């Protein structure tokens, strides 16, 4: 068995490497066909031909494409994503600054999404065709159909501007800025660690709306998938066996059925988390959240290709990593997947 698992691990590693390679190839191609000439951006369009040629050589653009690609690969693998033309910093350090904000948003959202989505999905499966089932169907249908940025604007209007229940756009009120030394970049964690509870609660009040919004979308997805997995499981014979031997209904549902449904659910949760990292792009724009999504869109408008591609690469890599992670856990938990 361990040998088989090891072989699977190696095959996953190969898939990962190949997919990342493809990711890099696509970003490289995008960077080369972009109509902005990076040389002109550097020396200006009035530069004499020899200066232009020197700058071109300096950027390595006079080399054949395959050599450029190898240099690009080497740079990326050594953590060099180039420099942002707007902030002047290395893209990697920019991303290191903005990514925690996105991570904080997505992580709280996935926790809430799991916490609500799984019980709702179980309820919908147990009472199939009754009101909990209809409720989750309506809730998830709305979640699949509503534009996230619009719902965010409406939520801001109602809960911030009109009712004033929550904090507005941004991560903190201005008065609380720069109090807590950033350590993890997750404001709630940093503030709690420093014992600055004012800052903590302010950060929470700013988190509530965007987290609720993102959590809603992951809840819709997780709930719907939980429902369909649970219906599959509850129809199987081992459930009848469990009931016959006298297990309580709660034990049958939560231990037996959900225990087995949990295996495919891991994939769903990982996928949902990956979508949250992406869905943050629009949400962050609406909530003026200084995360990776805002960084990429801002860079886009400034024609800062190094930043756009660096950001794309990081999100793409997290996507791939989460996919692979879920397949690994799946293979580890599900004996049938191990057998293949």
């Amino acid at each position, binding site marked *: 068995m361990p040998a088989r698992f090891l072989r699977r691990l190696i095959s996953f590693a190969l898939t990962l490497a190949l997919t990342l390679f493809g990711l890099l190839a696509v970003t490289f191609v995008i960077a080369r066909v972009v109509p902005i000439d990076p040389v002109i951006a550097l020396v200006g369009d009035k530069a004499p031909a020899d200066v232009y040629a020197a700058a071109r050589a300096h950027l390595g653009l006079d080399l054949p494409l395959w050599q450029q690609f190898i240099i690009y690969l080497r740079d990326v693998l050594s953590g060099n994503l180039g420099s942002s033309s707007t902030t002047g910093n290395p893209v990697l350090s920019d991303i290191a600054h903005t990514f925690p904000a996105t991570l904080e948003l997505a992580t709280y959202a996935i926790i809430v999404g799991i916490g609500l989505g799984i019980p709702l999905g179980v309820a919908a499966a147990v009472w199939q065709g009754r009101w909990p089932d209809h409720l989750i169907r309506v809730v998830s249908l709305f979640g699949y159909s509503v534009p996230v940025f619009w719902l965010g604007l409406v939520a801001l209007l109602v809960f911030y501007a009109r009712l004033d229940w929550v904090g507005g756009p941004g991560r903190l009120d201005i008065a609380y800025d720069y109090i807590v030394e950033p350590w993890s970049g997750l404001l709630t964690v940093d503030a709690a660690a420093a014992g600055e509870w004012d800052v903590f609660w302010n950060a929470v009040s700013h988190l509530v709306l965007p987290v609720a919004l993102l959590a809603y979308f992951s809840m819709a997805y997780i709930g719907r998938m939980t429902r369909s997995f649970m219906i599959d499981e509850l129809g199987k014979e081992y459930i009848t066996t469990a009931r016959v031997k006298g297990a309580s209904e709660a034990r049958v549902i939560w231990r037996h059925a959900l225990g087995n449904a949990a295996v495919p659910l891991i994939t769903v949760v990982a996928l949902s988390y*990956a979508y949250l990292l992406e869905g943050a792009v629009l949400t962050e724009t609406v909530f003026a959240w200084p995360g990776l999504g805002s960084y990429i*869109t801002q860079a886009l408008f400034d*024609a800062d290709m190094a930043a756009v591609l660096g950001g794309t690469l990081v999100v793409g890599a997290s996507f791939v990593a989460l996919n692979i992670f879920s397949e690994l856990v799946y293979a580890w938990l599900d004996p049938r997947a191990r057998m293949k």
Partner: protein
Amino acid sequence: MSLSSPLPPRRGLRAWLTSDTPASRFQARLGRYYATWRALSSNPLTLLGLAILLALVLVAAFAPWLAPFAPNDQDLANRLAPMGGLHPLGTDQLGRDILSRLLYGSRVTLAIIVLVAVISAPIGLAVGTIAGYFGGWVAAVLMRVTDIFMAFPRLILALAFVAVLGPGIDNAVIAIAITAWPPYARIARAETLTFRNADFVRASIVEGAGHWRILMTQIVPLCLGSMIVRVTLDMAGVILIAAGLGFLGLGAQPPTAEWGAMISTGRDYMLDQWWVAAMPGIAILLVSLAFNLLGDGLRDALDPRKRRS
């Protein structure tokens, strides 16, 4: 299928359509369409979705006759007018009639949906059926490419492509289509694998049919059902991505009346003139919802295995 009367009349069009022993291909095909329609129309929500989409098509076709104003007619004296009266849904920051802009905006939405479907579905179908039919290294290469594109987050990839190609509807369509085909390829391949070794395919081979002919006449038609379901469901997401690109200012450019871009301009007036941003959002929601409803209904009607879940 339950019949209301114990002794139904066995004549007429319905009997011909539901006949167990169709006399011709034509009759069999029509009979299948009829059965699908019966399954579809038995679900009121599916019909609602279909009705909304029909309305969308009609509105897009007849926008100039339905709209009370031209979409880009400015009336600066009448900026941000509230709902009601001459402007049923109010006016925006340039005094343009919001209802008229919504009606014309349906053309943009419809164009994006149709173009994305027409570009991405055939690509996915081709890649998937070829990979499934030939297998071996062809499949390995094609599906690996598919996986790579699958691994990309859709919106981010669309953003990156738009960044390269420049903002605009055409480029938004290309960007979305490039990110939309991989799931179709996976579905088409999975479907193809289930009947690649079926007797009717072998019979074709024995008859001397070439690969191309088998693909086009045996494989592709059988994949269409699940493709239609998936494409319909996907269009709900495509609308949201297109609107998202428009909202970010990377899709349709001003002054084109596009729903996502309309929300983006309405955002500045959200506090006092909420309808400017609210109305286009409702339009997006309705159309996206319609595709989800129709897609769910189609899945139930075309795929009896999933009817229960």
